[in-house]
């Protein structure tokens, strides 16, 4: 397995080199090599997940305290598998997504490499080397050619936020490494820090630091800006795989490096997750740009995963390892399923953009006729993210809802029980809103007639773009109906983190069961739905004969139907906007121009928007403070060498005094 890992890493480096030097023009060799490396990496991770154990070797040691150490255990393999899976499909899609060769093409394999490296880091130094490489490569990919204002703003915002977050994450891991007396992840895991002020601080820092990467509200604002700007295959990697690295860091800190702790840890995570989930999906419903909508949906799903982590922490604090493992399993299952669904939808959005030259859901429509294959795949993905059974998005939420109900009934303390009940309520609200969000996304893009422009010129993109999208759709269905298999593959990781097997498949191979009452068999559900649709169809056909149908125009109260009569994405979500107006704070303005002094209106102009409340009310004041203080601090920089030498001397003295 070591050799295979090294092969994967070297292939990724080679992929970058090939693109950088343009050795093989015409063929996108870099992307093909990345896909090949992803297959190898996927094999390694699948083997690790199925078998347990770890792959460990030293990469490079430039100095005694700076050892690049590779150690991929079950948890790392889980993240590695997510990264490799998304990279495989995204890379094939990228080959078909013809675009002029740029330096980005050489950065792309390095981005995959760094994410895989985060999963395989064996100590704090390696972890942050890879983490920083991931941040910089993805920054370059978001920046692109850097010509448009959107690219510049998005990439700089991302760069700034990710670095503030990295500082906090480093502080968190160093606090724990100091307590454990080692920077090696394996030793830090053995020395589990207990519930103390220092551990609480480390956990809180990790929540903010890693939570920024995962897009937790209110640290999410970079995500809907940065993810959609990049080309679709990069968006897929960022939104499906890179957010998972944030969750991964949080899990390492909260479950491996710290032991059972305070009651409020779990409540803090559940609250953060529930708020993130509801606000994420609400803002997703207000977006008319398809990729921004998907990015907000990522925020929602990371919220759901964080609720599961909080529930697991609460179970562990109450010394209930079995249910803790089950809640962790919910997080991992949802993370994996979300990765499949979100890469499917981002790649599908790429296909839509490729053929319709727009992502504006207020103008798109009727694409199902022009893009039947992409459309069917997107339907599967949309239903998956709407979390309806038997598709894969439902599995994780089923386990999570079960866990929250049993947490409320576990007697783990009144505060925890009430938090679990509240989280359950918000989880259900999130699921209902997600259904609205993805029916809207699919319906407004693929059904009806185009709301602006025409769909005539659109056609299915090249096979290299449709095959990955269809492959991911097949995977989404398979992972949904075969949820028991997925659970069996993933359950080793939460079992080893929580110290108890949390879920089993019951007596039957097709069933997902948690300890204590209630199990779920997606196979049986799928068969029941199909059979109970087919049997009545046959019965009615036998009794009343085959249906005949004729076609007629859409009924438009007697007038002629025109595409402009249709609802748009914005009007479809109007009831939600009004129901949640106290949270969304929508603004609208109606301007009427009159004919001279008469009362006859000449023109009525309407404009409305949902403000990005967090950016305007939280970040804008912070930004003003930062700019104001930067101006003041500039007084220190007066350009005189003597003064700078003085600063150095003072700083040195101060350090000596502190370090003594």
């Amino acid at each position, binding site marked *: 397995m070591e050799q295979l890992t090294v092969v994967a890493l070297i292939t990724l480096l080679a992929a970058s080199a090939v693109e950088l030097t343009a050795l093989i023009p015409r063929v996108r060799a870099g992307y093909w090599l990345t896909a090949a490396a992803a297959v190898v990496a996927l094999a390694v991770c699948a083997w690790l997940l199925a078998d347990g154990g770890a792959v460990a070797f030293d990469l490079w040691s430039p100095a005694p305290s700076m050892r690049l150490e590779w150690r991929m255990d079950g948890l790392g393999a889980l993240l590695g598998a997510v990264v490799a899976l998304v990279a495989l499909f995204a890379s094939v899609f990228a080959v078909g997504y013809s675009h002029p060769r740029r330096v980005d093409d050489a950065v792309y394999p390095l981005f995959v490499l760094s994410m895989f490296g985060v999963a395989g880091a064996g100590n704090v130094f390696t972890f942050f080397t890879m983490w920083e490489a991931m941040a910089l490569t993805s920054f370059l990919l978001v920046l692109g050619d850097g010509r448009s204002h959107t690219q510049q703003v998005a990439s700089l915002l991302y760069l700034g936020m990710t670095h503030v977050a990295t500082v906090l994450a480093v502080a968190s891991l160093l606090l724990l490494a100091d307590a454990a007396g080692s920077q090696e992840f394996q030793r830090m895991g053995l020395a589990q820090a207990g519930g103390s002020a220092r551990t609480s601080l480390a956990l809180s820092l990790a929540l903010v630091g890693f939570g920024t990467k995962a897009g937790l509200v209110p640290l999410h604002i970079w995500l809907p800006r940065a993810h959609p700007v990049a080309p679709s295959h990069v968006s897929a990697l960022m939104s499906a795989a890179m957010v998972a690295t944030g969750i991964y860091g949080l899990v390492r800190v909260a479950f491996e490096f710290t032991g059972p702790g305070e009651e409020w840890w779990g409540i803090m995570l559940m609250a953060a997750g529930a708020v993130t989930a509801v606000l994420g999906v609400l803002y997703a419903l207000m977006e008319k740009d398809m990729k921004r909508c998907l990015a907000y949906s990522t925020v929602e799903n990371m919220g759901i995963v964080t609720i599961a982590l909080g529930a697991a922490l609460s179970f562990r604090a109450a010394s209930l390892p079995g249910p803790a493992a089950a809640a962790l399993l919910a997080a991992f299952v949802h993370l994996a399923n979300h990765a499949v669904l979100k890469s499917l939808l981002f790649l599908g959005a790429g296909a839509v953009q490729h053929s319709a030259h727009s992502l504006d859901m207020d103008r798109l429509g*009727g694409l*199902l006729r022009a893009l039947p294959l992409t459309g069917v795949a997107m339907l599967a993905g949309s239903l998956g993210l*709407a979390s*309806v059974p038997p598709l894969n998005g439902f599995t994780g939420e*089923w386990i999570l*809802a*079960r866990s929250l*109900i049993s947490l*409320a*009934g576990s007697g783990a303390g*009144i505060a925890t*029980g*009430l938090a*679990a*009940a*509240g989280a359950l309520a918000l989880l*259900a609200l999130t*699921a*209902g*809103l997600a*259904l*609205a969000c993805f*029916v809207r996304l*699919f*319906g407004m893009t693929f*059904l*009806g*007639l185009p709301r602006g422009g025409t769909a005539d010129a659109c056609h299915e993109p090249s096979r290299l773009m449709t095959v990955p999208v269809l492959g991911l759709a097949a995977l989404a269905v398979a992972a949904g109906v075969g949820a028991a298999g997925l659970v069996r593959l993933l359950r080793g990781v939460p079992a080893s983190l929580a110290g108890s097997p949390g879920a089993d498949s*019951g007596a039957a191979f097709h*069933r997902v069961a948690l300890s*204590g*009452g*209630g*199990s*779920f068999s997606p196979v*049986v*559900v799928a068969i*029941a*739905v*199909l059979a*109970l*649709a087919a049997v009545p169809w046959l019965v*009615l056909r036998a009794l*009343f004969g085959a*249906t*005949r*149908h*004729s*076609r*007629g*125009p*859409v009924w*438009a109260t007697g007038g002629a*139907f025109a595409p402009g009569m*249709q*609802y748009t994405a914005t009007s*479809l979500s*109007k*009831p*939600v906007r009004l129901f949640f107006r106290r949270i969304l704070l929508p603004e609208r303005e109606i301007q009427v121009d009159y004919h001279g002094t008469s009362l006859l209106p000449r023109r009525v102009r309407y404009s409305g928007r949902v403000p990005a409340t967090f950016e305007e009310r939280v970040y804008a004041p912070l930004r003003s403070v930062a700019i104001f203080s930067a101006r003041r601090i500039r007084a220190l920089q007066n350009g005189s060498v003597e003064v700078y030498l003085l600063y150095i001397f003072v700083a040195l003295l101060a350090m000596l005094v502190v370090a003594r």
Partner: protein
Amino acid sequence: MSAAAQAGLGAAQVAFVVLAAPLLQGFVRKLKARAQARSGPPLLQSYYDLFKLFARSEMRAETATAIQALAPWAVLGATLAAALFVPMFAAASPLGRDGDLLVVIGLFALGRAALTLGGIDSGSAFGQMGSSRELALGALVEPALLLSLASLALAAGTTRLDEIVAFGADRELGFIDLQWGLALVGLSIVTLAETGRIPVDNPDTHLELTMIHEAMLIEQSGRSLGVLHLSGMIKQLLLASLIANLFVPFGLHRDPELASYVGGGALLVVKVGVVGAALAAVESLFAKMRLYELPDLIGSASLVALVAMAITVWEL
């Protein structure tokens, strides 16, 4: 339960909901007419309507894709599948081991997805208006439904609907407490919303300003329309059965003989009849609320159910 008994019970439940759902609809309509001092349509009118629709040819919109034709069958499949997880004639359901209350809620969501996509498909503004409203209301209903059922699950210590019914049947009158009452209020409001009845929706009107469910069906005709009407009636019967058996589980057996299935079935008919009468009473006594006032009503259902959960947590 043996596989044969499971299959038999499954067939019996599916046959029961398909055959009895139009009767419940007719019964409610008849009671409502009587309350308004009209004689109303015959009790069996819903069957006549369905037969008429099933035999007719269909008119589809030129702009519609296959989604419009497939949606009715998906809705029916999801609704009938949900019937297999609901305990009806006993404290047992055909597929109790393969799905719990969360799966029933999930299947309702699947039905809603198919229904709303069908409404959007043709491009008709009416269909899309209905879908828009249904999606927003559905998002509010989901927490109310889940919390109402979860507060019972919390007391019973299981999410399986058949085991919750068995738990209640064993406890007899001890099953009735404050949480029981609050959950009943929550589920009742959910039932009004999910069956498209006043004060949420008006099943008797085709006035575009007020309609939700009928608007989504506007481009459907013939057999497809019949299937969608039947699915709506089945969902109504399922929710009525849930209220009947979850809140009045007395006399239902866990592992019954054939005779006690029959007895449980007779009990169910009586209990569902009472629920239907309550639906007719609410429809006669109240006026339809404005769409934008509905969050208050459905939100209060969620809140009441949340209080029920909180009390149970407190007592544990």
